[in-house]
């Protein structure tokens, strides 16, 4: 049986709690679809090779580099981009700790750190370092970013669990 060629597909993506219908090439990365089809430009293209983390989004709560994921793979999964976070503890901590300068890496770092404090509320220094190593910042010395993570972790430990 001949399998027909399908140049573009229509898919539903659940982005920031909103169901969005998009028409994509199956070879489009999630990063490209978020930015160029959905207009969500918070996830940044850096290396587009899985190395820098500036394109990080959350898939079912876990950080993923959207440049090494196809948009079609994200069907039936919850996608969260920086546009979906509002006034979260980690965003406030980035402001309080001066954890950014030019800001290009910041959405990716925030997504990763947001997942970290949710998934590992008891993260120790080793876990924090392991997670932060997924992202690259050209401006800061990373110390401020680490301080932001630690401030959220210690606050949520004293307040009880972190909530979205």
């Amino acid at each position, binding site marked *: 049986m001949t399998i027909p060629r399908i140049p573009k597909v229509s898919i539903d993506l659940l982005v920031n709690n909103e169901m969005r219908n998009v028409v994509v090439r199956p*070879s*489009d990365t999630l990063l490209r679809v978020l930015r160029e089809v959905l207009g969500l430009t918070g996830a940044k293209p850096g290396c587009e090779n899985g190395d820098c983390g500036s394109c*990080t989004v959350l898939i079912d709560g876990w950080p*993923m580099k959207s440049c*090494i994921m196809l948009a*079609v793979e994200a069907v039936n999964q919850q996608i969260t981009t920086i546009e979906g976070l509002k006034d979260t503890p980690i965003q406030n901590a980035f402001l309080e700790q001066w954890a950014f300068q030019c800001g290009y890496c910041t959405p990716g770092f925030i997504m990763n750190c947001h997942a970290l404090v949710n998934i590992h509320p008891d993260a120790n220094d080793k876990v924090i370092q392991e997670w932060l190593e*997924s992202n690259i910042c050209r401006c800061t010395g990373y110390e401020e970013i680490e301080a932001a993570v630690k401030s959220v972790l210690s606050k949520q430990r004293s307040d009880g669990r972190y909530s979205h």
Partner: protein
Amino acid sequence: MIPFDFEYYKATSIPEAIYLFQNLFLQGRNPLYYGGGTEIITLARTNRIYTEAVIDIKGIPECNVFAHHDHKLLVGSAVTLTRVSEERLFPLLSRTCSEAADQTARNKITVGGNICGRIIFREAVLSFLLADSDILIAGPSGINKKPIHEIFKQRMRLQRGEFVVQVHTDTDYTKLPFIAVKKRRIGSVGYPVVTIAAMKKEQLVRVAFSGVCAFPFRSHQIETILNDRLTPLETRIERAVRHLPAPLLSNTDASAEYRAFVLKNTLLDVLTALEEV
């Protein structure tokens, strides 16, 4: 951006994946099985591979198994490195997988992708080489189990239309004393200069290497030399390094000479630690 189009199929069973592959192949679409997809995307983006159809195997239940069953540890090919690292069912495997790539990438990279990939550094395979694991392969001729030593020679030798479903490892091997060391030139990210994984079984040390030559390997000849306890340890290591299966890798991370130096020192640490166990 990936500069060409391909179609995406998500298989939900082994027969469906094989059927899709055969049909797409007959139509000249050069299909590829797709797991985590990280390597396919990066190679496609830079025009180093070409396909007109990918068949995602992540929806196949057998590829997602990660559990002990009947005195075997079954690791599905679509299980992510993060899952292997966190659910420590095989501590040596968890350890080596937890050092591959970076934390976020490990949420996407799968065990199957790591052992079948083209990348020189394929950490997941080291534990399976040491544990004499079997590879469950599905393809047009059905489902077959083959010893890893038969099917992994520098890289996974799969026939057209075949894909890895699971890796089976005797539970006993998952409990043996082990050590895994990854040496990088600088810091704790980036490609390693040398990775050594070793385990001890019945007083004999087994050793597997990645980053040393252009492919991961385990060598019985090297193990025989290293286990000759009548010879001083340093001499054994010197001899072992003369019996590598291929020239030492030389690249921007490390010259062959530097790599030899790091390799010998790391072997000394690994063997000293394991011989004391």
